[in-house]
């Protein structure tokens, strides 16, 4: 699963990703780079790939603040989204993202950043299990997710997650 994600990220940047293995000890992906050194962890690898790519277009954040914020969301992704224990943990993660996105179009700044990409890939499997009710409950997150999956180059071979076109449940269900 993680391997796929790294392939997707490298495809997004139009580079080959090289040799990806799974670190047995920590169960995290591990990328072997040119001189034999290893880069470990999904966020680290993603950043490595993004920095190695020529056309960055502010993918790591346009300003210094944005870059710091991107790092913060990558951290959020690895520490919260990838390591949730119970359904309750997951719903608190989704709730947090939802309320954060209520005032924003993208996670950081005003264009797609690495934070959006990684969050999207991380949430894809979560979203494929969500009910329509939950999708509407996390309306702001869903809006962002829907935009991301239709942003060119992002979704790639992943399944398109269906969303309802009209609000089908009473509005008070939206979590803020």
């Amino acid at each position: 699963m993680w391997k796929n994600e790294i392939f997707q990220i490298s495809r997004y940047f139009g580079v080959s990703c090289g040799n990806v293995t799974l670190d047995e000890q920590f169960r995290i992906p591990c990328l072997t780079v040119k001189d034999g050194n290893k880069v470990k962890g999904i966020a680290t690898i993603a950043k490595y790939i993004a920095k190695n790519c020529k056309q960055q277009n502010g993918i790591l954040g346009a300003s210094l603040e944005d870059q710091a914020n991107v790092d913060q969301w990558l951290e959020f992704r690895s520490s919260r989204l990838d390591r949730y224990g119970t359904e309750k943990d997951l719903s608190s993660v989704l709730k947090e993202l939802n309320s954060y996105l209520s005032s924003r179009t993208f996670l950081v700044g005003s264009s797609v950043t690495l934070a959006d990409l990684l969050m999207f890939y991380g949430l894809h499997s979560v979203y494929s299990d969500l009910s329509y009710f939950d999708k509407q409950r996390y309306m702001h997150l869903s809006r962002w997710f829907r935009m991301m999956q239709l942003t060119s180059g992002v979704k790639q071979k992943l399944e398109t997650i269906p969303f309802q076109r009209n609000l089908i449940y009473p509005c008070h269900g939206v979590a803020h």
Partner: protein
Amino acid sequence: MGFGDLKSAAGLKALDDFLGDRSYIVGYTPTQADVVVFEALSGTPSSDLYNALRWYNHIASYASQKSGFPGEKKALSEYGPSAAATPAAANDDEDSDDDIDLFGSDEEEDDEDMQKKKQALVDAYNAKKGKKPALIAKSMIILDVKPWDDETDMALVEKKVRAIEKDGLVWGTSKLIAVGYGIKKLQISCVVEDAKVGTDFLEESICGFEDLVQSMDVAAFNKL
């Protein structure tokens, strides 16, 4: 219908509701539609209209790039809630909007690919469905047919019952069961296709032999 007057509170509310599950006015990338609505606003929406505010801030962040957005400007009333009800604006996958290219070219290829795959799947499914006859729901019914008295000719009763013919009805085995006082009832099984034969039909037909049959009961009814 559109948003109405975007300088009024009602218009802003409509815009806010509209943007609840959308990032842009049309599609999933900024277009001239966003610029038209943006320019129609008198200023920053208030903070309780957070959807509208979020969108406003986002569009404002493009500053001078706004003129470079794709699409053509239409009248303000062309955008908004009723426009969203038309398939062009609401569709996630099919980019059927005639003048606005919402997605990059490779996305379209993906879509075509998807469409082809989908079509292939549907064709395969139809072919499979065509070969296999539709499953017919059948039931096994056991009937108790009671005569008037011990002098009734049960052989004749059975003969008459078996003579009832209908599409989807097959008679099975039968036996005579003693009820008492020398009276015997006829127990007969049959298999019916649910769609074609009902117990009402059976009861009507069998009770039709008034001089022989006193009553008829369904002893058992099993779906096959």
